């Protein structure tokens, strides 16, 4: 009996691990190393990669014009995150409070948008907000404005698109955290004389903060990289790090510079995750 059990535990461990390990090595580790190597390379006048070691790319990226893009990225990501928290928290709380049947339906409604391409949904927003879009037509028809409003191609439109795309990433960790909340703790708080606001501030909020942190990470980091949202809704006026990277690998054809930008984005992400774990968050909650 014992030997059978031992075999059962040891053998599959290796057999199951090896495909995953090799997949990770080929699809994650090797490309990352390649990107890291590229980021220290140069290009010649024909935009071909020269494998000579230099810090030029990083030096370029310290220039003020790039800094402006970083700041813009961080500002948009921060605003998006805050809006997602403010909207997502009551939303998640409301879902948890529903009877199981309605809860499942609402939960599905949050998840279903994942099943359609986010690019298509962002184009949908573009035609909805555009000068001859549905919203503007409605405003003109209602007589609120005479001329169509300029709703697109500004920072607000980008934030709207980001919030729309990443809202579920905020709701899901919040939902998990709020669902885990022990209701007797809320009763205990009332019992000890805390009114609703105080109960929220002193008991509910601190006990669901892990969900807020996890949601913030899962919204903040992708916002930096979702270049297509700022491309389509920002119209190139509101560039983010993601746009720069995309351009270096695309039209600018400067892979080493793009790689260096990617490395900076990865470092930024790691710093955020480090801050998150320092604040007491668990990596598993990030999914």
């Amino acid at each position: 009996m014992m030997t059978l059990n031992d075999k059962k535990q040891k053998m599959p461990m290796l057999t199951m691990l090896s495909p995953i390990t090799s997949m990770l090595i080929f699809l994650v580790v090797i490309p990352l190393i390649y990107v890291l190597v590229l980021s220290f390379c140069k290009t010649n006048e024909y935009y071909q990669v020269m494998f000579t070691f230099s810090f030029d790319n990083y030096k370029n990226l310290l220039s003020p014009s790039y800094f402006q893009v970083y700041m813009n990225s961080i500002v948009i990501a921060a605003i998006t995150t805050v809006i997602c928290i403010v909207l997502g928290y009551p939303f998640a709380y409301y879902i948890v409070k529903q009877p199981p049947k309605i809860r499942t339906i609402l939960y599905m409604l949050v998840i279903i948008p994942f099943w359609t391409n986010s690019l298509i949904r962002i184009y949908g927003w573009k035609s909805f907000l555009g000068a001859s879009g549905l919203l503007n037509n409605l405003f003109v028809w209602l007589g609120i404005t005479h001329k169509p409003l300029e709703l697109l191609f500004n920072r607000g439109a980008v934030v709207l698109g980001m919030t729309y795309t990443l809202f579920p990433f905020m709701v899901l960790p919040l939902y998990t955290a709020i669902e885990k909340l022990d209701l007797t703790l809320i009763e205990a708080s009332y019992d000890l004389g805390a009114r609703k606001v105080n109960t929220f501030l002193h008991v509910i909020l601190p006990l669901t903060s892990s969900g807020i942190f996890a949601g913030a990470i899962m919204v903040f980091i992708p916002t930096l990289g979702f270049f297509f949202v700022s491309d389509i809704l920002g119209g190139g006026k509101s560039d983010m790090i993601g746009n720069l990277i995309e351009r270096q690998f695309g039209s600018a054809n400067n892979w080493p510079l793009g790689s260096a930008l990617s490395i900076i984005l990865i470092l930024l992400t790691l710093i955020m995750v480090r801050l998150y774990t320092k604040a007491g968050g668990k990596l598993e909650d990030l999914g």
Partner: protein
Amino acid sequence: MNDQHDFLFFKFSNVRRMIMSEKEVLVKLRGINKQYGTNQVVKDLNLDIYKGEFLTLLGPSGCGKTTTLRMIAGFETPSSGEMTINGEDLINKEPFDRNINTVFQSYALFPHMSIYDNIAFGLKMKNMKKADIKPKVEEILELVQLTGFGGRFPHQLSGGQRQRIAIARALVNNPQVLLLDEPLGALDLKLRKQMQVELKRMQKKLGITFVYVTHDQEEALTMSDRIVVMNSGYLEQLGTPDEIYEKPRTKFVATFIGETNLFEATIAQVDEDEVLLNFETGCMRGLGKDFELDEIVYASVRPEKMNFGSSNFYKPSMPAVVKEHIYIGSIVKCIAMLPNGQEVKIQRLSGEPLPKPNEVINLYWEPEDATIMHSREDTLFSLIENVNLGGAYDDSK
């Protein structure tokens, strides 16, 4: 000599009356009903809770005891009925406006706060000054014998320690009523016994009204001033522990509290304050008034009140066969079987002469040791006719 006895008795009864009259009603429940959909959990509950008493709500799970407690705490609203504290309406007050605190079954300590902050929470919410909170918290930590634990967190404490903190957190607010919802349920037996004594000590010391919910009858009997026995939403009996134990009013109370032998019988003869009971397999006497001839009743006799008689028939008795003796330290539990298959529990002290197993004996009890209860049945349930002895019963053996 006799005069002196009378005088002493007079004095005692006077003192007794004084103690009784001091009882002041604190919480009053009148006609309380609680319904969840079609499921009625509490049915027409009337209850007075006295100031400074230790009242226990006792009953099996699902009897409505916890719901009653939660209604007093304010977490549930009665479907109908009145509830007052010191004459003031209680039902329309939010839980945070009631000067009532609860010790939860799961303790419900705030995991993100230190022990100090947990205890201070209620005082902070009442906007007490920080300087005033500190001595109060320290005083209560001393009361629960956990001085110096203020800086720790709930997860660093053992179950028993968390339990004490939960009590301290409630008591520090000096509530009018302290509600305890099976607070000792998660503790091991030894710790539970110790906490029972301690809880009683604290209650006496502070003079706070305790309303205690439990399904453990032994716990209820040892700690309470009065016990409310509940069953499927109804209040079955309210009384002091000895009243509940010695004079159960219903079949449920008799069987739920302690061990007992329950017999069905018809009243064969009604004397002044004694009745003759006719059982399926015998005939006995019991004390009781207000019984009618031929009425079906239950007789409850505690195992320690059961006696083995000799096989002469000069006293009314029940013939039985001794099945086995179980030695439990200072007492012996004996099981005997009546001719109709009913098992009777008899409890004797170790060392007493006992009949041997398989011996035919007569069981009897003194008339005052049986509690006779109305049954509301109209026919006697015959075990001889209704119990199938099945394949296990073999005549040839």
